[in-house]
Each structure stands twice: as structure tokens, then as C-alpha cells.
């Protein structure tokens, strides 16, 4: 597809791996995207320096997950466990890359996890990571790494959660005519799987503007009409927007940080929404 070629700026995808369910979902999504975009995939595994440091502290004990027993942490065992995790991650990356016939590389670094992930992703065109990692609280919102990537990291970044298959994503694009949402549109078109529907949620200040935007969009739209569906919502944010997104119940949400709503609103939306998000 020439349009896709033109808009395709993503040649290199980085994915953060830590053996959690979120990270496995991230790997699946990243690999699927890499196949679609013919991009190279790099797996990043960070050995958490905090864990290693803690092991050297004289009194630190580990509370075992399934027995609630407390045991002295042994630095060498811990090192070995991390190596095993890294190996697992590498193997799963290799397996999926072989399956989908994509180019891959794997990198292990040591440090504070969020910072290392963001730094390692620096060279990539897209960072894919789980909404939350192996964080102990099983929280609903974003994990520490995702939060840091959202706040400080390079864009675009794709936040993944388990339960969505990258192959069958319909895409929901938030569009308000801003430059940011134009970029989001290009990104959405570039990653949408052939045959899937693109839902465009137009956020217009007025009804008229909203219709105008739809007309403008349909003129420049690179996808056939049957593959695009337009929805309209008065410009809003927060709970109303979230409810509407849930109602459309589309797979991947694509939006930009530089839209008419504030960056904080965008971040809050990403933090609370229960869908995978591609932030441009």
C-alpha cells in the first residue's frame, strides 16, 4: 500500500520484557506490528538494580508469594533467577520472531527499570510496554515504567494490556483537527490491520465544525469508506469521554499528546482507560 509506505516511519520497535502477563501481551502486539510494518523488533530486559542492592542489605528477607514464608535473600540465587528470567524473555522473543519471520534483537541492561527501559528505547521508533509490569500491587492504573514513559519518554509509545489481540484490533482514533491528532491519524492508518475498521471519534467544538472535520477527513482518508466509521462527540474530556470510548468498545485507542485537551487530561485518560493505547 503506497499510503502506508509513505506514512511508515516506524522501522524499529522496542518492547519491554519482564515475564509478566502484560509484558507477554506487549511482546505479541509488538511482534504483530513489526510484521505488519516490516520493522525490526528489539526486546529489552532490565535487571532491577533495586532488587540486587536489596539482596546485599544485611537484614533483607523475601516473603514468598505462595507460602507467605519469609526467607533470607541470597544475592547469588537472585542473580541466577534474574538470568533465568532474562533467558525466558529472550527465548519467547526468538520464538515469536521466528514464527512471524521478523528481525529481532535482545538487550539486557541493569539499572532502575523505568529509566533503563526509556533509555534503551531511545533508538527505536516505537516503544511497546505493558500498562503495568510485575509491580506487587496489581494496580489498575499504569505501572511505574509506563508512567515514566508517559511522562518523560519519547513518543510514540504503545501501552498494552492482556486480553486484546493485535491481529484483530479495530482502531479508535481521537480526532479534533489539531496537528497532534493529524499525526495520530497517520499513525493509526499505518498500524491498522487490513480488513479492520477504523473508528474515528471526532471531538468538535460545535456540531457544524464536527461535520466539517468529517468531510475534510473523508476527503483525505487513505482507507476505503467502508473501513471507516465516524462518531461525533462535543469536545470533552474525563469521564464523559471515557464512557463514550467504552461504548464504542473498539480495540486500540490512538491519540496524541498535543490535542486540544490538555496533556494532563490525556495522561489521566490513558491512566484510567482499560484499553491498549497508542500515544503519538
Amino acid at each position, binding site marked *: 500500500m503506497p499510503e502506508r509506505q509513505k506514512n511508515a516511519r516506524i522501522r524499529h520497535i522496542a518492547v519491554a520484557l519482564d515475564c509478566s502477563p502484560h509484558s507477554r501481551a506487549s511482546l505479541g502486539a509488538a511482534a504483530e506490528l513489526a510484521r505488519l510494518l516490516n520493522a525490526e523488533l528489539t526486546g529489552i530486559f532490565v535487571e532491577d538494580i533495586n532488587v540486587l542492592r536489596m539482596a546485599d*542489605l544485611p537484614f533483607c528477607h*523475601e516473603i514468598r*508469594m505462595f507460602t507467605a514464608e*519469609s526467607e533470607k535473600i541470597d544475592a547469588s540465587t537472585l542473580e541466577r533467577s534474574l538470568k533465568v528470567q532474562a533467558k525466558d524473555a529472550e527465548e519467547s522473543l526468538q520464538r515469536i520472531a521466528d514464527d512471524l519471520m521478523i528481525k529481532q534483537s535482545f538487550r539486557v541492561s541493569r539499572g532502575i527499570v523505568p529509566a533503563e527501559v526509556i533509555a534503551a528505547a531511545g533508538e527505536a521508533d516505537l516503544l511497546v510496554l505493558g500498562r503495568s509490569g510485575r*509491580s*506487587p500491587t496489581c494496580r489498575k492504573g499504569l505501572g511505574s515504567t509506563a508512567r515514566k514513559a508517559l511522562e518523560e519518554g519519547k513518543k510514540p509509545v504503545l501501552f498494552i494490556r492482556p486480553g486484546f489481540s493485535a491481529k484483530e484490533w479495530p482502531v479508535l482514533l481521537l480526532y479534533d483537527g489539531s496537528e497532534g491528532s493529524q499525526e495520530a491519524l497517520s499513525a493509526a492508518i499505518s498500524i491498522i490491520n487490513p480488513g479492520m475498521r477504523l473508528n474515528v471519534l471526532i471531538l468538535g467544538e460545535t456540531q457544524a465544525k464536527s461535520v466539517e472535520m468529517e468531510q475534510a477527513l473523508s476527503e483525505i482518508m487513505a482507507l476505503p469508506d467502508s473501513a471507516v466509521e465516524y462518531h461525533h462527540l462535543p469536545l470533552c474530556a474525563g469521564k464523559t469521554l471515557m464512557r463514550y470510548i467504552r461504548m464504542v468498545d473498539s480495540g486500540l485507542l490512538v491519540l496524541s499528546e498535543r490535542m486540544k485537551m490538555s496533556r494532563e487530561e490525556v495522561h489521566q485518560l490513558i491512566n484510567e482507560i482499560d484499553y491498549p493505547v497508542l500515544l503519538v
Partner: protein
Amino acid sequence: MTLPSKLTPEQLYRTCNPQEFSFNTTADLDGPVIATGQKRAFDAISFSMGIKHDGFNLFALGPNGTGKQTAIMHFLGNSAPEAPIPSDWCYVNNFEKPRHPKALRLPAGKAGALSHDMEQLVEALVTVIPSAFSSEEYQVQEKNIREQFQEQQANEIAELEKKGAEEHIALIRTPAGFAFAPEKDGEVVKPEEFMMLKKEEREAIEEKIIALKTAMQSIMAQIPKWQRETQEKIKELNRNIASFAVKPLIAELRTEYNEIEEVSRYLEILETDIIENFDQFLDKESDNKELLPGIYPGKFSQKGASFNRYRVNVIVDNSVTKGAPVVYEDKPSYQNLVGNIEHISQLGTLVTDFTLIKQGALHRANGGYLLIDARRLLAEPFAYEALKKALRTRHIRIESLAQLYSLISTVSLEPEPIPLDIKVILLGERYLYYILSVYDPDFTELFKVAADFEDELPGDFDGKLAYAHIISSIVHKDNLHHFDRGAVARIVEHGSRIAQDSTKLSAHIQSISDLVHESDYYAMAATREIVQAEDVEHAIHAKRFRSSRIREKIREATLRNSILIDTDSEKIGQINGLAIYSPGGQSFGHPGRITARVRLGKGEVIDIEREIEMGGPIHSKGVMILSGFLGARFGTDQPLSLSASLVFEQSYSGIEGDSASSAELYALLSAISGVPIRQYFAVTGSVNQFGQVQAIGGVNEKIEGFFDLCNARGLTGKHGVLIPASNVENLMLRHDVVTAVREGLFVIFPVSDVDEGIEILTGIPAGELDKSGCYPSDSVNGMAVARLNEMAEKIKKFSSSQNDDDQ
């Protein structure tokens, strides 16, 4: 002495006058078969069927082919439809103890309906339950419960994390669990930095960490409990949803069957089971663990065979039964009587469930009548015992024989026994009844009534009419040509011949039925629409001819003088006896030469047949009786000074029966007296010690046997047979014999005493004692006495010369 006169042709054959019948052909007879002459048996049947107490089952005894079954069926055909229709029975799953399937009793015709309703129910559940569980309402509720758990867990840990953060302690996820460590600016304090802290500070941190750790442990200890609670909540939700989906469907059934308490109870348990196991209705494809290969799994298979557990196995369906059922079990094997539990091989293992329970004849006949052939029942292993057990316990208990005798060891069932209320009618030969009565104490308790069927019907008009009706019913049943009254009359006559009694008719319906079919065949061959007397005659003749090979061979040998039978001259000490041969069910008579020789001796009669063990006990008894007669007649004044030997010439197999004893006596008298016997007569009849001639069997065949031989050699008018006078009533001779008698070519004398016989045979009177106690010298007895005296003299002389020599 007055000699008996020859029998007239009318005495030889009792004809049945077709004009006696008012019908023209059997087509005019369409009424029921009028049973006659079986009053005793019918009274017994009626009594047995009427009495309601235990053990009054019936044994119908009589020879095979006498129509016992037909008569009973006819009797039951009138009474059974009036009786109430018995209940339906079915087996259903026992949800608490699947090894013991439950038996349900339903009003007639309801079992099939219940089975159908259950199929419908399962069909409905397959749609209703999945749709209830895929509803948004359920999904939301389930998600809420799960999230509640996640949230609870997350909140507790987040709370702790927050508490730690306030004190600069970080909660760290390790590969195998959690740990706490002091942090500074989001990073864990380096060990060297930590060691540089003051001892008090380190201790303070350590304490905080211990406190946090303890708190963490107590949170984690609670996680399984929360998980259980969550699971319980989800279960409760599932139950509610399933119950909401299932209840209206079952309620409908319960209303329909609310009058049948057992079914209502079953439906109640069924409802609970479906609600508990709702998930089997969700996963259609994978749930085939109970699928049985090698058998068509029925409608439910499409939805997984686990629904088998909700099926209804209809064991007895009386929906189309009228009155009480009447069942004839042709093969009364154990399984066919009490039912069976079948197994199916599944990956080399034998498996079963309640749907594989098969009914037996006892189930089908429950509430009615079961007819079984006694011989077949006794020939089937374990069947008789099983029948007795069922009757004794009044329950049908299905047990696997192989299981019972440990021939196989696999999972089997013990279905709930079904109450039994039945009349069993055994049909069999008399000897079976007598053997069972003697040797089986249970038998007399369980089969208290015997219906003893007569072998014969009275030969009166009623009997003849009954024959006509029997013929008519056979014709109707088997779609044969109708018989005119002449043909019927001929069959009636044949019935008398089979009965060997001109005043009776044979009750052996099988023979009559065979004759009817054969006559129909010949009528058809002669392209006649109505079977006539000549067709019947043809059939009788043809049947006789078919089985005549041995008879013809013997006659041929006789005509060639390979077997020596004199039918012409007069001979001393030689007579024609008459023997019956019965190869393969057909019997025929043929003369046999009996000879007697005498010599000096001590008065014994040597039966050569007995000496070489070819004579049976009755034959020997006959010979001894005639010795008694001889002794009494000639040995009262002096000892008999003779030895006599008696033999059946040219007999190469055993001899049995005493019907030749009169012939043997005549031969002896001839041998002693030296009076020749007329060889153109043949003799049959037994004698007693007083010389009276007694009745014998097979008189018709015997006469015909001699007639055939004489006829082949050419009848001269002097040929004839001496028969016991008491056998005259048994005469139903062939037409050719009767014709020869009518034409004066053949004679038959009824003899009641040996003195009559010897006079007919020798032409010389036997002689009666005069006042001086002597027989006239020109009589047979007189000549015998003279000869005996002569022999006594010779012995005396011989003994004295012997004594002289000794001295």
C-alpha cells in the same frame, strides 16, 4: 364253543358322513374355534387365571402339538383385554448413587411421553443455559466479583506500600515474592551507604521492615481466603443464573406430572443436578468424556453424551397395550426373561450406564400373562432358577450373569428391582411336569395348577364340528383353499385313525394342521378351488408313500423269500406274528415268523430272545405268563415232561412288548399237539394266565402289514388276521383293506380267548374238559395231552433205564 364271527366292513372303519355337517365348505365357518373335550384343562386354566394368590401359576401339560398354546391364547384372548392396563416402567439416573438406577412407575403410556419431554428439556437447556450465561448481565456481575477480589488485594498491598513509602521503605518485587528495603529517591539504598548509617538508624530501619514484613505476611495469608470467598460468590451467582434459566422449564414438567409423586420427586432432584452441573450445557464440543463409541448415541449426542444422565430409559411402554399383556417368550434365556445390562467397549474397557438396561419378557408381561415352553426354559442355563426367583420374591431384579459368576469384572449396575405381578404359564410334555413335581420342591409351590390336556377329543358330533372349526381357522390363518365338507369328513376320519380309536378324534392339532396344508397343496396342484376328500386322501397316501422305503424293503425281502413268511400252507409249531416297526415317527406293521419246538424236558419254556438278551422285560413277562397258562392247563396231574423253545425267526434286533404272546402260545400248542397251523392267518394279542386274549396297540398297522404282504402275493379269500376282541373299537383301517373284507378276500376275527383262536387257526376245536376231566381226543387240547403223556412215558422209561445202568 361258538367261534366269533368275522368282522363286518362297517366294524373296520367308522366313516364320517359329510351330510352330518350343515356347512358346505369351511368358508361358511368363521366363528371362533369351539374347543371341546378339554373341559378339565379349561377349568384349570380358568381357575388359575382367576385366582389372585401367589403361586397359582399354571403348567399346561400334554403332548406337543395338541394346541395347548392355541387354547390358552384363545382363552386369554377373551379375558385379557378386559383386565386393567398395567403401568409403564422406566429407569432413570440415580443422581446420588449412579450404580443403582431408579425405577419409575407411570400410568400406561406416560413413560414414552416423559422420555420425549426429557429430550425436549435437554434440547431447551442447551440453548437456554448458554444464553443466560452469555448475557451481559451475568458477564458484568462475574467481572465485578473478580475485580472486587483484585481490588481488595491491590488495596491492601497499596496501603502497605504507601505506609512503607512514608517511612522510606520500598516494596520490591523479587522473582519469587516480595521484599522490603530502605529507599532513597526511588532507589534502594546501596549496601555501603546503609552500612555507613548509625547503628540506631539501621536498627530503626530494620524494625520498620520487620513490621512491614509481618503486615505483608498477614495480608498474603488472607489471599487464599479471599480467593475462596470470591469462588463461592461466583458459584452462588452461577447457581442463581442457572436456576433462573432452568426453573421455569422444570416447573412446566412438574405441573404436567404433578399427579405422579415419583416423577415429581425425580424432577426435583433433576433440577438440583442440572443447576449444579450447568457447565456441561455450556461446553458443547469438549465434553464428550462419556461418549460411547460403537453405538448410535441418539439425539443427545450432538450436544455431548453427558446428557445421557438426563435420559429416560423406557423399559415397559404400554401405550398401545389393550388390557393385560399376553407375552409368549420363544427363547426363554436368562437375559430374555429378566432383562440385561449391556456393556460397551470403550478403549478396551467395558462401560455401562442405566440407558443400557434392557427389558426382559417378565417386564413386558408384568401385570399380565407370560407363556413359556417348559422344555426350552429348562434347556436355558439359569433361566428356570431366575424365573422361580422372580416369582418367589415378586420382583424383577436384573443381574448380570457374568458379574454374578465372576466371569467378567467390570463396573456394572444394580438397578432397583421392579415389583412383579404376573401369571406364568408353562407349556410342556407330561413327563416334564412329573419330573419337576418330584424333584423340585419349589415347582409345586409356584405352579400349583396343572391343566392336563387330553390327547383325544370325543368322536361325537361336537368333536367333529370342532375339527371343522380347527380346519377353518387354519385355512383362514394361513390363507389356504377352503375345504368342502367331504374333505372335512375325511380329515375327521384320519383324526380317528391317528387316535387309534374309532370313537375318538386325535387332539394332535399339529398333525391335522399338516394334513390340511398338504391337502391344500394337492388341491392346488389339481387346480381345484375347493379342497375335496380325494385331495385329503391323496395327501394321506402320499405321506405314507414318502415314508415307505423301509416298509417296502422288508416286504420286497419277504416276497423274495429272503425273509421267510408262509402265507399259504399249514405248518406245525409255526405261526405268523405281527410286529410294529417305528422308524422316525412313522410306524408300520409286518408279519414275523414265530416258531416253537418241543423236546423231552422238565417243563420249562425257553425264550431264545431272552436268553440272548434281545427280548425286553415285557416280552419275557409275556412268555412267562404263557408258561403259566401251559402249566395250569396241562401240568396239574403230572409234571410237564417237555422243554419248549420259542423264537422270532429272522429278527436281528430286539423284541419288546407282549402282543405276540398269544401267537407264541398258539405255536406252542401246535408244536405240543402236532396240529398244523394255517399260515394264511396272522395273529396279534397278549394273553393272561387264564388264556384270555388282551388288547394290544397298533392294531391297524399290524393288520395292514399282513394285508399288504398277502395282497402282493395275491389274495385268495382265506387270508386273515386274528385280533383281540377288545381292539375292535380301535379299528380305522385303510380303504383297500376294508374293500378286500367287503369282497370276501380278507377276514378279521375278533378273538377273546386262546381256545377260540386255536380253533380258527387249526380248524380243530380246542376241546373242553369232559366230566372225567379229560379233553376229547380229537381236540387240540386232547392231542396235546396225549403227546405230553407219551413224552412223560418216554422220560419215565428213560429214567428207569438210566437208573438200571447206574445200579
